[in-house]
Each structure stands twice: as C-alpha cells, then as structure tokens.
C-alpha cells in the first residue's frame, strides 16, 4: 500500500506519461485521417536533438522548443510526401524515418559535441509551481511542480477533443480515415486533409521530443526516445483512437513504467511490469477483451483521380 502512496511514484508517472500523451495524440490525428504513423519515434527523436541544439545555441529554451517542433513537422512533411504523394508503404516509410532520425541525431551529436555530449549549460523549459495544488495528498507534489509542457497538455487535450469532434475540419479529417471516397464526393481534397493530420502528428511528436530533452532534462543522448514512439502508438491504439483513450492509456503505460523504475532493487521483476503495455495492446487489437477498431481506411493509400 505504501508503494502506491509514495508521491515519487506519481510524480514519475506524470513525467513518463507527458511525452506519451503528446505523441499518442499526434498519432491519433494521423490515423484518424487514414495514415498509419509509426514514424513518431523518429519525429520525437529528431525534435529532442534539435531542441537541445537550438536551446544551447540561442540560450533560449523556447527557441529550442520552436526549432524542435519545426523539425518534427519537417520530418512529417517528408513522411507525407512519400506516403501521400508517392503512395509509398506507410509502415516502411515510417521505419525509414525512424532510422534516419536515429542516424542523423546520433551522428550530429557526436560530430558537434563529441565525447562529452550536449553542453551542461543548455537551458531547459521552465517548471511552474502551483502551490495551491501542493497540499493535495499523494498527488500534490506530482501536480504542483511540473514543467510548463505538462500544464500545456490540458489545453492541448481539450483542443484535440474539440477539433476532432466539434469542428468541420475534424469531421472532414475523420471522413478521410473512414471512407475517403465519401469525402471526395463531397468535393474535399483527400490529400489535403490527410496531410493536415500527418503534420499535426509531427508537431505533437515534436513537443513530446522537446519535453524529453529540454523539459525534464537539458541534454540529449543517443536513441533518447528508446521506443517511446512505439509505446505512444500502442497507447493510441489501446485508447481506441480517441483523445480521452489516448490520455488514459498513456497514463496507464506511464504508471507501469514509473512503477517498474520504483521497483528496481525490489523482488518484483520490473521488466515484467514493462511488458504489460505491449501485451495489453496485443490483447486489445486481437479483441480478446473489448476490441478496438481502427478507422476503416487506416493505412490505405488514396489515389486522387485527375478528373
């Protein structure tokens, strides 16, 4: 019981979950538009590196964040060009993006900063203190002192829910993921809406990457994302392609990660705890307990007729 009452556990849960939530929201926008996006890993990684590089060079973490997000967006545009315009296989191109990001960031890290890694004088994004919340039991410390990007999550989540289900744009995006022919027959450009979904996934993955490098830390190391992009993908699937679901799944997966870290040194095997998110996702897609349903046209390239 004391294990669950430990504020550190909950603080860690929030820290681990935040990038997952951002990235899984991004993946959700992409897939709601019908584009399977496993490239979030690479977009995150690229942004994590670029954020540090620009934050250090400009002595301003905000400029770092902006540059990181821009790099995530740029990766997503490359992804969109190949998958939408050239109709390349979305999974394979996603893998290529991930490899490119892994190689480029690792290479530039070494080439620019050498052995010592990114400079310790790199600024990081500010942490806000909300003293009102600090008196809450157990969860207080986790919520009262968080990085600005954690608080930014609240409007982002609300905005995502609103944009996807309340705006014309959201309706159109979802129609492209369900049945692009219907959108097309309503006179809409399938590629344009799919592109907007992919671009959003790049931007949100960019924020997630920046959070890892200049949010919780102020440094970058090789393969820093370490598969978080894939866990975010899993969270999005487990959350049934919905903002609330992505949030809940990311929190569950984040909690499991945090718990496994807390459990290190104890008798409970932490690695087994880390297996749970993956197995849960497999169970969910197989429909063994409560089947999740992807958008009907998810992953299917669309050829815009040249009428």
């Amino acid at each position: 019981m004391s294990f669950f009452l430990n504020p550190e556990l909950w603080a860690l849960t929030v820290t681990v979950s935040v990038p997952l939530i951002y990235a899984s929201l991004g993946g959700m926008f992409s897939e709601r538009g019908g584009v399977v996006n496993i490239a979030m890993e690479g977009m995150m990684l690229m942004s994590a590196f670029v954020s540090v590089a620009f934050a250090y060079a400009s002595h301003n973490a905000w400029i770092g964040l902006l540059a990181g997000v821009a790099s995530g967006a740029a990766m997503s545009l490359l992804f969109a060009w190949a998958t939408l315009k050239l109709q390349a296989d979305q999974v394979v191109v996603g893998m290529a993006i991930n490899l490119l990001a892994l190689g480029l960031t690792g290479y530039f890290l070494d080439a620019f900063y050498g052995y010592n890694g990114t400079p310790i004088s790199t600024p990081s994004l500010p942490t806000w203190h909300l003293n009102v919340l600090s008196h809450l039991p157990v969860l207080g410390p986790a919520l009262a002192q968080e990085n600005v990007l954690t608080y930014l999550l609240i409007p982002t989540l609300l905005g995502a829910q609103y944009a996807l289900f309340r705006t014309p744009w959201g309706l159109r995006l979802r129609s492209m993921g369900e049945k692009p022919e219907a959108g097309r027959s309503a006179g809409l450009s399938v590629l344009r809406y799919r592109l907007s979904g992919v671009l959003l996934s790049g931007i949100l993955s960019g924020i997630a990457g920046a959070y890892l490098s200049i949010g919780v830390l102020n440094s970058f190391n090789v393969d820093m994302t370490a598969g978080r992009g894939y866990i975010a993908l899993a969270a999005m699937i487990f959350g049934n392609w919905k903002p609330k679901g992505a949030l809940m799944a990311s929190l569950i997966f984040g909690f499991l990660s945090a718990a496994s870290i807390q459990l290190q040194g104890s008798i409970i095997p932490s690695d087994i705890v880390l297996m749970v998110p993956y197995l849960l996702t497999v169970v969910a897609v197989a429909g063994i307990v409560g089947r999740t349903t992807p958008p009907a046209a998810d992953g299917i390239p669309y050829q815009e007729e040249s009428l």
Partner: protein
Amino acid sequence: MKKWALSALKPLLTVVLGLIVSGLIGQLTGYPASAVMSALWLGSVGTVTNFASTLVIFIPLSLTALGIAIAFRAGLFNIGAEGQYWMGAIAATWVGAMGGAWPPGVHLLAVILAAIVAGGLYAMIPGLLKAYRGAHEVITTMMLSYAAVEFGHYLIEKGPLMLPGAIPESPAIAQSATLPILVPTTELSAGIFLALGAILIAAWLMTRTRLGFEITLLGKNPKATRLAGVSAPKLTVISMVIAGAFAGLAGGVQISGVSHQLMDSFANQYGFTAIVVALLARNNPWGIIPSAFLFAALQSGAGYMQMNANIPAQMAYVIQGAIVFMVAADRMFDWAWIRFRKGRWGQMPPSETPAIAHEEVSL
C-alpha cells in the same frame, strides 16, 4: 525494355544514392567524403579480420531477413522479427547453459533446434491472431517484439538466467554448445554455413516446394488462393511460424557462435536492420546474400570508421534510412525522371489504374 532495366537498376541506384548522401553529410560536418568512404571500405572488406567481422554481422542479418522475406511473400509484414530473434536466443542460452553431459554434437544440435522452435512458436502468436482474430500483424509483432526484449531483460536481471553480478547477463553456455570458430582471433564461426544453408533451404522452399507455391499464392491473391482450395488462415499461421523459425535460428546462432551468453547488447537491432535487408533484396532469398552483405559491411565499416577515423558510426543508420526510404518511395524516381524530362515542375502522371479503368468493368 527500358523499364525493365530501370527496375533492375533501382536497388543499386538507391545504395549509391545512400552513400552519396552520407558522403555529403560527412563533407558538411568536417569529415571529407573520401575519408568516410575509404574508412567504410577498409573497415568492411579491407583486411581479413575486418572481412571476417563483416561476415559475423552477415549471419544474423541474413537469417533474420529470411524470416521477414518469407512472411512478406505471404503478404505479412513481420516487423517484429527482433522479438523472435530474442526468443531464439533465450531458448538457445537456456539449453546451452543447462549443464549435463551431452554426447558430442548433440548439445549444439539441441541448442539450434531450441532456437528454431522458440522463434517459430513466438511468431505463431501473431499468426494465429491474424488468421482467426484479424489482428493486424504489424501491430502485434511489433508489440510482441518489445515484450520479448523485456522478457529477456527480466531473465538476465532477476530471472532464472541471471548470472549474479553487477552487469545483467546470463551464464555462458557450455563449450559443447558453441559453434566452432573458423578464423582464429575473430568471431567468425561455422554459423556462416548455417546462414548459407538456410538461404539455400529458403530458396528451395519458396521456389521448389508446394508449400512455397502456396505461400506465394497467398501473398499475391488471397481470394484466388481460397478458390484453389487452400486454407488461408492455416497458411497464414504456417508462414509466420516458418518466418519466426528463421529469426529464432538467427538468435540461436548468435548465442552459440558469437556472444555465448545472453546480454542486452547481443541483439544490436539486427531484427530491424534485417527488415531493410529483406526490402532491398525484394524478398528474394538469393537477393538476401548481397543485401545482407552490404548492410553487414556498412555496420562493420561504420564501427571501424568510428574507431580509426573518429567519424561517428551512426552514419550507418543514415545510409540505411535513406536506402529504405528510397526503396519504399521508389515512385520518386519516376517522379524525378518526369521532372527532369519536362525540365519544369509539372503534375504527377495518373497512376497505372486510373479511375476510368474501373468504370469499364462496372459498365
């Protein structure tokens, strides 16, 4: 004729372009392209030792790539071959380190068989889920792959394969379970014959057997396959099991021939690089020989480059990524060609199957 020549040239072209990209990046960051290229060359095939280390990487890459290629032939994207590779390695380590007195050769055989069976069984899960529950194999194999890695970590950190000490690792396998080393002072083992043998078997399976014929059918046209009286679900499971068996074998050979114990670094992301190998080989078992060799050379050359020329080894991933990208988006060559011919930014040509073609059928 022209078109045929172009399609044969594409893989070669992608490799050359990938190298050019890396040379450019090197040049821009202060490492002359010539230094990059010569280090890569020297580090991969320049000396007997380096050549041997290229072959050492060739073994797991080619074996895992076979597992991916066969699944691809059946229309399945086994993106999580890494997990089957881990499971093979885990089984091999367990059998190799279980002790007991084994007649000569039998222990080695048991290790290899255990790896094959473990990989095959692990791949059977996504196969079954795909065949009978419709779960997409990209997601299930990927998730199961991460789960397998975590499981491996557990075994060597706190589980039954843990060797007490600070570093998470398993006990070493018995001498009787190791593959003989071919070139002294290198890690090149008789595993190379297993790899070449496996390629031979895979090629035979795919081109000479009825099962291979059925797998190809399934990948090309599941509907017509069903109408020919073949059970598609059963075949889906079988294809995944075979694919996993090859990936598992790769893990077993790596344990038995190179690392001799399970530890975190033994996998080295071979499972993912192998996807690239299979793609470049266009899922042809014979094509895997040059393709796996190329990427093995790239990896071993990159390691050498880092050590001797101080050029970051991550360059290898950049080249790989660029190659995968170009292989996947191979329409970019047509796109570029049209731009080049027109000399201006025009519209993409309509695809081979314009909307009008469908009208004709539904008339």
